């Protein structure tokens, strides 16, 4: 019992350290690349100033970049400790959905009869990672005829433009494709 507890604690500690390390690398790197793109110069002076600014800014920001978990009390996530590769593929899928959504809305707007039947639906999707919640709410806004009206206690209130849009996100049985994908992205 004691040994088991010890092992799990060590594993947890390592995990936290790995997440911290990822956070320590990703944010300054992103800021540094941002600096290079904006200045557009590769002189030593500009690179040194940029590197220092990136390090100072990420150090100042570090206290607010640990987000408390939604369900596990006492646990917190590093905001930049994300599954980047999976996120990349998810964003490609989202881009496709965004284009489809726009064509659908364009067709509805240009249709003289205006075939809309707006409705409000709710669905429940418990996600522990705060970034996952944000990603889901944001993806809903960008995709076919749906807007997130409110998020609270795992319940998402959605305003849908048509009945099909409402059903694709919150089917009568089971879960919609998007919540499942976001859940899989964060292994929840």
């Amino acid at each position: 019992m004691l040994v088991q507890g010890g092992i799990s604690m060590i594993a947890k500690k390592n995990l936290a350290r790995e997440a911290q390390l990822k956070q320590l690398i990703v944010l300054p790197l992103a800021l540094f690349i941002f600096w290079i793109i904006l200045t557009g110069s590769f002189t030593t002076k500009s690179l040194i100033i940029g590197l220092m600014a990136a390090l100072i800014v990420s150090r100042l920001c570090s206290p607010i970049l640990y987000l408390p978990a939604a369900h596990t009390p006492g646990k917190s996530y590093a905001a930049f400790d994300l599954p980047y590769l999976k996120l990349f593929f998810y964003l490609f899928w989202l881009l496709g959905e965004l284009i489809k959504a726009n064509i659908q809305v364009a067709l509805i707007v240009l249709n003289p009869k205006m075939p809309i039947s707006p409705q409000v639906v709710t669905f429940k999707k418990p996600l522990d990672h705060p970034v996952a919640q944000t990603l889901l709410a944001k993806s809903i806004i960008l995709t076919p005829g749906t807007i997130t009206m409110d998020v609270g206690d795992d319940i998402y209130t959605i305003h849908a433009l048509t009945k099909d849009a409402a059903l694709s996100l919150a089917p009568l049985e089971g879960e919609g494709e998007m919540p499942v994908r976001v859940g899989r992205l964060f292994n929840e």
Partner: protein
Amino acid sequence: MTIVALVLLFSGFFFIVVAALGVIRFPDFYTRLHAAGKGDTLGIALFVLGLAVYNGFNFVSLKLLLIVLFVFLANPIGGHVLSRAAFRSGLKPWTKKGE
């Protein structure tokens, strides 16, 4: 390359015009947000992307791509904040008669 840029620019124009038309034609606040939130995001993205392609690959086009990135991050939040404010202050969504 110019043709690709032109196609991107004009599809961007098309989506922005459709979004503006939607804002005029839709019946209530929430449905108008549908037009504004989505049409603008893709319209601006395509438009700026077209400019980046026309410009060729250099630092200016990278900066233009950054604009696309920030529009994608900020626009959904704007739409959500507006709809949540309306929802919490008790605005009832418009529904079709008889439903």
